[in-house]
């Protein structure tokens, strides 16, 4: 029965994705003068060259981090949306180290990433403390704090790290010693992908094979039961959000050190929001985060290629995202069908 249920959940997700894609394809058919070309670029473009496939992997890296971060916080039933701000501030913190400090090769990025993580943890920890102390909704406070993160970050860049000789509001060049090495020739895929994979494994073990992960999951599923069992739920709630913030901050640092020559974000980059989509697709299961991240990155790059080579805008991706999330999040989507299955099985059992 439980296997059947897992299968049902899987087919439900696939069906949701299929319906979303179908709607996108129909939209393309309607708006495009050359729909065949647009469609094939959208669906197959990322596979056509090493560079484009590299783009998919590059985009996956930040999504892996934010997806993991969000999934940990969601597992504890904490709807902290601060991964966005933590990612951004993580990038700022590592920029500071990369620009201002002189350190040897490997130690330089390692230290920058670590600091980025700590900053992210502190940032996501604020809504957690507010929740535990005063029962303030972490959803609202983290959402608002994201803007604080944005303007605090821009202030730091503008007043302490800005290169006045550069044309835009960007930081000084990051020291060469601080950058992450490239992994695949012909692409910009960097060392961060290995850290991301390691992080996936670590988080999976943390959530399913350690007492801390058990506490996080139990608190998320039924906090009254967790408290009754002797678990200090308040500390678990804070721990989950510190961890989530740390991973998001690490992700931001790695993105900056792996992909950029200067810190040049003028606004929130959006990977924190995307992390929510990835976590929902993966049902908060760390092992499935890579699947969700790959899928979303593939769609994004496909749409981007399509907009560059055809008359369809890349925004078509947002239609897919929207429909997909609504269908997956809608608990009763196909519930009727599922109930029929249950009914049939019960019938078979009794006769």
């Amino acid at each position: 029965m439980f296997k059947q249920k897992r299968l049902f959940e899987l087919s439900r997700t696939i069906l949701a994705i299929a319906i979303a894609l179908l709607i996108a394809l129909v939209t393309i058919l309607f708006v495009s003068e050359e729909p065949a070309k647009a469609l094939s670029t959208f669906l197959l473009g990322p596979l056509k060259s090493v560079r484009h496939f590299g783009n998919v992997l590059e985009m996956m890296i930040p999504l892996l981090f934010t997806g993991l971060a969000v999934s940990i916080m969601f597992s504890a039933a904490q709807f902290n949306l601060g991964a966005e701000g933590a990612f951004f501030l993580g990038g700022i913190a590592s920029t500071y180290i990369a620009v201002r400090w002189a350190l040897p090769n490997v130690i330089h990025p390692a230290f920058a990433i670590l600091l980025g993580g700590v900053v992210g943890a502190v940032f996501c920890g604020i809504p957690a403390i507010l929740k535990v102390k005063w029962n303030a909704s972490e959803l609202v406070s983290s959402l608002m704090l994201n803007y604080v993160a944005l303007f605090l970050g821009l202030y730091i860049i503008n007043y302490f790290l800005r290169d006045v000789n550069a044309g835009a509001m960007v930081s000084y060049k990051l020291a060469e010693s601080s950058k992450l090495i490239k992994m695949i020739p012909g692409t910009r895929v960097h060392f961060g992908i290995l850290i991301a994979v390691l992080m996936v494994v670590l988080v999976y073990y943390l959530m399913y094979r350690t007492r801390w992960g058990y506490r996080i999951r139990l608190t998320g599923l039924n906090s009254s039961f967790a408290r009754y069992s002797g678990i200090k739920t308040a500390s678990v709630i804070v721990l989950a959000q510190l961890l989530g913030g740390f991973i998001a901050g690490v992700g931001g640092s790695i993105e900056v050190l792996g992909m950029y020559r200067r810190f040049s974000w003028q606004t929130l980059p959006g990977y924190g929001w995307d992390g929510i989509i990835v976590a929902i697709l993966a049902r908060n299961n760390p092992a499935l985060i890579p699947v969700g991240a790959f899928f979303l990155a593939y769609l994004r790059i496909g749409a981007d290629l399509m907009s560059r080579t055809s008359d369809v805008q890349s925004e078509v991706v947002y239609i897919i995202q929207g429909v997909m999330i609504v269908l997956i999040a809608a608990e009763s989507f196909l519930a009727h069908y599922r109930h029929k299955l249950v009914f049939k099985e019960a019938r078979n059992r009794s006769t």
Partner: protein
Amino acid sequence: METAVFIIKGELLMQSELLSMNGITKVYPNGIVANESVDFSIRKGEIHALVGENGAGKSTLMKILFGLEHPEEGEIILNGEQIQISSPNAAIDHGIGMVHQHFMLVPSLTVAENMVLGSEPKKGLYVNLKKAVAETKELAEKYNLIVDPTAKIRDLPVGIKQKVEILKALYRGAEVLILDEPTAVLTPQETKELFEELHLLKDQGNTIIFISHKLHEIKELCDRLTIMRNGKSQGVFNVSDVSEADISRLMVGRDVILKVEKEDADPGDVILDVDKLTVINDFGKQAVNDISFSVRKGEILGVAGVEGNGQGELVEIITGLKQIHFGDVRICGNNIKPLSIKEIRNLGTCHIPEDRMTYGVAESLDIEQNLLADKHDSPEYTGKFLTKPKVIRENSLKLIEEYKIKCGSPLQEVKMLSGGNIQKVVVAREFSSSPQLIIADQPTRGIDVGATEFIRKRLVELRDQGSAVLLVSADLNEVMELSDSLIVMYGGEITAYIKDTKSLNEEELGLYMLGINRQSPEEIGRAIHV
């Protein structure tokens, strides 16, 4: 000719039925078949009992009749016409009213306001409260259900609340009244009063469906009965034609062993010591008022009382779920005031919670993980960093076998199990930590006879092995059968201490539970041992 006569007879039979439900099948989303091709019918002006064990499908059948659940198969016929009952509103339009086990009343409103809620008499834009009060009074007098229309619900005792619920259904024009285990929350005296009122209702032409599993009540009150077992109807009988033994045999398919076999207790040292405990609840009311008692090694102390007389708060304090209180609670000599829930558990306390779905399990987690909750961080099950899946699996397989938890695999979600098996998961986990002190709060509420017997037996076994047991139960049969000694709580105070439960009869207990009788302080003081 013969067939014709037969058909005529059949038609005559049909005509006398006011309402019938034919071939009702209901499967819940978790796969539990609550009703399977159930036929059920009632005649005008009768009191019809619907009996069966917990989980036999009585409540589900009535929920379908009241429009709260929708069946997969079957039809409902009222006065010869097929009807659809899509919602409680539709049921009320058809003259069907229901009094739920858990009252659906707004505590902060008055009786009259509750009565008219949803169909208020209007005076311009305002609710005509005067008219509501007058109507309530009139109705109350007509049916001899005496209530004060201006009293606030929260100030009323359970028995009166129930009267309000019945009046509410009548106010809405109900002619068929469904009462879901109405006596479960009543004292013997209140029950007697209710029966008189129901007889009066019947005499005035109303039809009553009375859900119960208390056989003597059915014998006393009802005309006919339908027996349900395991989601199926076992047939309809005239109450006068069947004996209590017949009914119980049809209910459970075997003779119920209500007696718990146990030796006399051999109490040892004091394990739990409650000393002048006072608890103020969230509404600022003294829920527990200066009570003292102790539970010794190897004895079961029962706490009897109508629900809501401080038992819940007492349990919350002892288990550490609630902290602010006056007076002391000591477990094995340790004052628990500064201790966390974890530390109280580490003293050897285990707790079967009253509400198993809220406190006892995480329903979407599998059995194995649920069995682990209180010991997930003990060195037996986890190393420095990683847990030990093999040991955990062995433990879950062992407990599933030992406690006869019916399931496909330890990886099955708890919510797919039946109530009795879910309770066994809770009990297996709590009992497996070799407890010194067992706090069992309604340990067999709402579960089948098999699981009930099993859990009661385990409690006695653990007592014999030297555990101290505090048993809180609203089930009189349970506290009287299982406890060695007994305290009775009323209004947050102990009204009686019965040293030897065997010497007690139900009538006497009822008087203590209602606070009508009360022992002298010296007699109650015997509950404290040194």
